């Protein structure tokens, strides 16, 4: 990467930082697309969706607004083959070669870029089915590290859980529990999380927690969301 393109990117990051309305701000779905991303990050949008808002279609998580330290940890984790090595983790396998080619400077820049980006909340079509009350109860043990509102805690390197979608959180919990994630020697953070998932004996427990966290976050179209609703008149093709 040339010095000029780095400068260009830094400017773009600064621009996004200035215009971003907050880490998880729910921008109008159309207005939020009225911002470009630097060319170097357009490839990220292919899988992670426009403004890295996530794409269930290829099981790529919503990553916009994740804290930079966490994104950096995960990119490093992919680089060190902590993630994205096993056939059971096909989405991780798709990510791994991308992370592997980033040098340390690019990892930091990418993490900063991702953390300063906002994206619209996803539609609630792909929301996970689970028992929110049960999830809230089960979450109390998670809250010790991840915070009672799922806000995360950088002091213990616990990421916020109210950015990604429930289907993604549930997949990762299963991967931790089954040793698909957090089982590679040297992955200390992963090992810690893996140990924490041992109490989740049933799949339904996992879905319940994910459903609770999704409710904490809200959806673009869901009535319980206190986020502003986009004002878009739609034409339905009706006979």
């Amino acid at each position, binding site marked *: 990467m040339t010095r000029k393109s780095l400068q260009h990117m830094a400017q773009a990051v600064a621009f996004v930082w200035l215009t971003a309305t907050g880490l998880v701000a729910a921008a109008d*779905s*159309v207005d*939020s*697309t*009225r*911002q*470009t*991303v*630097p*060319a170097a990050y*357009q*490839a990220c*949008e*292919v*899988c*992670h*969706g*426009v403004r890295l*808002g*996530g*794409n*269930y*279609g*290829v099981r*790529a998580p919503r990553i916009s607004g994740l804290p930079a330290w966490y994104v950096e940890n995960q990119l490093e984790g992919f680089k060190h083959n902590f993630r994205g*090595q096993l*056939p059971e983790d*096909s989405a991780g*396998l*798709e990510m*791994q*070669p*991308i992370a*592997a*080619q980033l040098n340390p400077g690019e990892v930091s820049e990418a993490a900063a870029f991702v953390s300063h980006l906002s994206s*619209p909340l996803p*539609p*609630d*079509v*792909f929301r996970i089915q689970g028992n929110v009350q049960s999830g809230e109860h089960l979450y109390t043990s998670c809250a010790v590290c991840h915070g009672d509102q799922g806000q995360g805690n950088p002091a213990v390197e616990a990421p916020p859980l109210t950015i990604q979608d429930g289907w993604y959180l549930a997949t990762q919990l299963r991967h931790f529990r089954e040793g698909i994630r957090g089982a590679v020697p040297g992955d200390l953070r992963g090992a810690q999380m893996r140990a924490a998932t041992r109490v989740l004996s049933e799949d339904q427990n996992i879905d319940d927690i994910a459903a609770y966290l999704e409710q904490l976050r809200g959806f673009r*179209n869901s009535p319980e969301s206190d986020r502003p609703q*986009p004002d*878009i*008149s*739609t*034409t*339905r*093709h*009706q*006979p």
Partner: protein
Amino acid sequence: MKQPFSRRDFLNLIGAAGGSAAVYQSSIALGLIPAAGALSLTRLEPLHKTPRRVLILGAGISGLVCAYELERAGYECVVLEASHRIGGRNMTVRHGDTIDELGHAQTCHFDRHPNLYFNAGPARIPAHHKLLVHYCKTFQIPLEVFVNEDRNAWVQDSNAFGGKPVRIREYITDARGFIAEMLSKAVNRDEFDAPFSDLDKEKLLEFLHAFGDLNENNLYRGSIRAGYKTGGMVAHGTLKGTLDFSEILKSDFWRFRMHWAEQEDQAAPLMQAVGGMDNIVKGFTDRIRSPIITSAQVRGVTLQNNQVQVIYQHKGKLHSLNGDYCLNSIPKHLLTGIPNNFPNDYIEALGAVPRGKLFKIAFQMKQRFWEDDAIYGGISWTNQPIEQIWYPSHGIHSTKGIMLGAYTFDKKHGEYFERLTPAQRLEEAIRQAEHIHPDYRGYIESGVSVPWGRMNHLMGCNALWTDELRARYFNRLQQPEGRHYLIGDQVSYHAGWEEGAMSSAHFALADLNQRVQAELRGDAIP
């Protein structure tokens, strides 16, 4: 608000009243669903002076068909393509080409020579793919015969014949011979539920005799179909001994590969475009006058009153376009990541169907060693992850050739290769092919791999519809949503085929044509 009443509206009404069978029958009567084998070309009625703009997303085969047909009828079209190249999965790789795989961009180092190309996407044209053949004929794209089955090629299976390759000719001949012999014994012993008449029995025995090339005692003792062991020209020919039938059964070859060339789309005659399948793409781009904007990544699709708005990024700037209609071939698994205001059931359908991960490798061989082995085209099959090796049908007896070193159908095999680096993939493909051609490595000059599941702006190949998914979502996606039509092979019964893409395009065009004509007549919706 005035909205036209289209044929599709009519079908929706019938569907509500009489179910899908009623829709199907009516569709045939209205000419929307063509009878199998018929050319289902939509003739768009000319617009004359009424302007209509159509936004076409994706410059693959379906998008190109739409642009070509619409502009000829007087529509204004804009085609947006996310990739740097036009053609979608119709991709021919030659000297110097970039393979835009996410994370592993490769450059093709084949020699610069007209014969030395690799069809990374579609490679076969069945004669009954009427739309594709129609465009090839209309554009005068030179075609040549594509050899899809070569009985001199090999079947290699680690579970049979000690892992040694066997000629397909021998395998099929012996398998048929043994089956015919067993059946003829059963006929002679009257081991059937319903007794045959003596005449039927005689005919059936003759049939089996011919089917399996049995001897005068209706036993199979080898056949010239498997090739002679020695002689046959100026000396008496000696038959080869037969393969062990239990070894034949141990191999997986009989599950579908043995019957490969029996399939509707795989049986002779097949063709290919001379010089590379992307000459089909060129046939369209040479004629299309509408702008085709490459490196234009769509960032939003909004259905508005009587319009569709598309926002895209091009050369670092945002652009917004409005059209009267939008024909969208963006892979549906990527469309779910692009902000839109589609209704929830439409989004759910877009996200429901898994994506295929077909994978191909091609090698430039410095010598056409397979021709010394009497192989001229066709496929050798193996139960190893590479699954197939193809020999080129063109450039016979020239010096070099491009061989297909792997073509995986099994998603597991595709993902296995995807997670290797390009260099590791080639090495692995060589190692596996050495079980068929021991000297393979020595002929290789360069190689490339194309994992469709990792290709930029595609991240997948054929949509993996199941009967259950089709029953639930196919009609929803085939129907337009407002003025937005999803198109491409992804909304056809021929995922992964150009004919599927073209059929889907014409299906959408037929509906659009009806709606626009109704608009122009000023028809009101009931």
